[in-house]
């Protein structure tokens, strides 16, 4: 084993208190995936361009591939695993992505939904342009984004209690 010093970290992930010792260089994404077995957030580029690793940290979207686990000490984290409704049913966003065909291979989806979740907190009634700008840190290779935009509009409408547009195609 490596003889690099281990640092204690303590944080809240999806409502649960977590305490571990980590190497200072351990990236948050590896900590989540390999220490906590939260494999929803993915690694797509390691350079913070693709957003597949997006998690919510203290109410902000962060790319966990370019955050050290020690930087998350004391933080409140939400990952895709913490997105479903308390009763286990799909959240408005998760349902929106399914209804509007906002995903295909599913690899970008956890980061995309996690980002959209925070986006709708920042701006509960986003325009299409605001949605497109708001998710521009998250890349998708499959969908061409059009249905992702619709999925987020679906969720916004559902959360705001307004009419939901028709399903995809």
């Amino acid at each position: 084993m490596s003889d690099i010093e281990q640092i204690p970290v303590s944080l809240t992930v999806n409502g649960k208190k977590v305490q571990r010792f980590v190497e200072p260089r351990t990236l948050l994404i590896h900590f989540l995936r390999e220490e906590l077995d939260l494999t929803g957030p993915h690694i797509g580029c390691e350079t913070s361009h693709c957003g597949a690793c997006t998690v919510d940290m203290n109410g902000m979207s962060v790319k966990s591939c370019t955050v050290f686990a020690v930087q998350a000490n004391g933080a409140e984290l939400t990952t895709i695993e913490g997105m479903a409704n308390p009763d286990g049913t799909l959240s408005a966003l998760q349902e929106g992505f399914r209804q509007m065909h906002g995903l295909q291979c599913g690899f970008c989806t956890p980061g995309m939904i996690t980002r959209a979740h925070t986006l709708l907190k920042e701006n509960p009634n986003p325009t299409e342009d605001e949605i497109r700008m708001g998710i521009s840190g998250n890349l998708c290779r499959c969908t061409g984004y059009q249905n992702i935009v619709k999925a987020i509009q679906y969720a916004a409408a559902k959360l705001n209690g307004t009419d939901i547009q028709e399903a995809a195609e």
Partner: protein
Amino acid sequence: MNDMTPTREQREAALEGMGCKRKRVEDIRFTQGKGQYVDDLKLPGMVFGDFVRSPYAHAKVTKIDATEALKLPGVIAVLTAEDLKGVNLAWMPTLAGDVQMVLADGKVLYQNQEVAFVVAENRYIADDAIQLVEVEYEELPVLVDPFQSMAPDAPVLRPDLEGKMEGAHGPRKHHNHIFTWEVGDKDETSKAFAEADVTVKELISYHRTHPSPLETCQCVASMDKVKGELTVWGTFQAPHVIRTVASLLSTIPEHKIHVIAPDIGGGFGNKVGAYPGYICSIVASIVTGVPVKWVEDRMENLSTTSFARDYHMTTEIAAKSDGTVTGLKVHVLADHGGFDACADPSKWPAGFFNIVTGSYDFPAAHLEVDGVYTNKAPGGVAYRCSFRVTEAAYCIERGMDILAQKLGMDPADLRMKNFIKPEQFPYQSALGWEYDSGDYHTAMQKAMDTIGYRELRAEQKAKQEAFKRGETREIMGIGVSFFTEIVGAGPSKNCDILGVAMFDSAEIRVHPTGSVISRMGTKSQGQGHETTWAQIIATEIGIPAADIMVEEGNTDTAPYGLGTYGSRSTPVAGAAIALAARKIRNKAQMIAAHMLEVSEYDLEWDVDGFQVKGNPQARKAMKEIAWAAYHAPPPGMEPGLEAVSYYDPPNMTYPFGAYFCVMDIDVDTGVAKTRRFYALDDCGTRINPMIIEGQVHGGLTEAFAIAMGQEIRYDETGNVMGASFMDFFIPTAVETPHWETDYTVTPSPHHPIGAKGVGESPNVGGVPAFSNAVNDAFQFLGSTHIQMPHDAWRIWQAARDLGAHG
């Protein structure tokens, strides 16, 4: 019948069969982060492998010293070519009949080539150890320009081939030459050119790019030495082929190899081939006795596993003065990199590039492709297209525009004039294909009417006049593209991979309660097979799709198939599914006849069961029949209700479409804005329109990326430029245009359900639509052809060179 009896329409709707916009089964797990991708796998004792890679594009490797690396705590092993030679795996065969180094054997041929494989307790230690492996290189002259590959004094890239003047595809004429592939009638074509009123000639290049799925290539290899069994989980578009290859290379019997492709985060052709990472992980697991995980990073992905395109196409068209085309001549210089690892069916060194006559009735055509080596990464995969079909479509669609310009004809009118006519199908092309079906005129007319083509041309003319008068700095381009694809490889008479015919398969088992498990030889990477395959079965056997589970990717349980790429899943496996389902329905008919005490010929199929002709009240639903199959089958009949089908397609399928792109370009900044993009696709029978639309959106977005900026470029010393998402263009939601989709339906006459495949059409048709839009915009300033990719910098340069900057 009472009021509670569901109507025929209600029963049909309950099936969620073909034609239904069924919501995807996969989404339940994917939206909750519960997909199971390779890197999610965690096995007891698992260790990590990672590569030492070459910083040079061409060099001798004179020394590899792993002493310091092995001293690092947590490092388990460092493999080099010398170690692999012990198991005869320093080199591996490629799909194209060449051989490729697994680890550098005395030299390297491209930057980032695999030199040594470090195995360590975790990925961080593996990374540390890579820095400690000392490799000495002796630099060699670098060859990056394919046009210089066959120069007399070009450096010898492949000393291992010295003296071998016969390659896998015929004679080699130079030490850096791989093959020459010739199709068509040279004399007839020359005659057509000699007699032509008008000819055009242009070098049309399709630059090197990369499929770049969001999940990179990765695997976990686990050798159980006690049982003598190897399990490999990997990002495999063709898991069965990987197992066969693994068995042939490792000499482990095929039944003792378990290849499993779990959820895959996009493929687009990147995950068809076998890569050094897979081989090294397997060897490392055999050596260490513990599971070994290998995960490519993005830079490794973009710079080593599977580039696409890099075709340089000298295109000539002969025509009469009225625009009737009479001959096509194409010479392709194909840059294959350091090894020929193209993922094509074995007999097709340039894939199906001979679809290059496109949608047009060329009486004569001649094609010659020269494949050459350069100091670049190997690959040549079909990035969201059937084998080299997107290159062919780009070649002819650009060529037709150039011809239209010379003739002074409208490019849409020129296409209409030369389309293969509906009554000509099945159509024999001058380069050897039999197009199964098509109705090009109807599709084109519908597209032109919908987009308001004539009005757009009038607007463009007005804008050009305004530009000339100095009233605007914006110009307008209308990109016309009409493509014909060839997909569904393929018939065993001409398609195989390493000798295995390119059939596909399906197995369907109906349980006593009327629910179904089905397995196929294909492997979804986002196409939604779990959803759509169930829809085909639902329609065919009358059991709701919700009661049908689809499973792919496990070579132990799924029937053998050649996998998912080249839009082959629906044309080949889709047919196998329908035919397996029909076997079940045939048996069900006999069981129903026994239950109803009538002859099976007195029965007719009705949505979800059989009924007596003329007496619809006397019926047995499929669920009742399933129970009877296990409970009380007719005397003499085997119990159970299951079927397997292996389908060898009689022909390819030929999807087509009409795409239009309207673009506004600022000549002073080079910024091009896509105002409208309209895509009409004809993929025959539509299984799930929602998924088709989604596929079209995604393919168009990839086409947009490729045409407008995405490129793997090399500098003169062979440094790969832009091998990260910092530089490699992946459009975000902001740049991506809005897509308008449409369709016509011309079913394939030879496919059991008339389906043709669609996932790759938008990439094939989209790239020429974008490029033609840019080229069309600059035509009135005297331009004939501007090479892709059309990023703002290059468009600005084109504008400058044409004098548009004043």
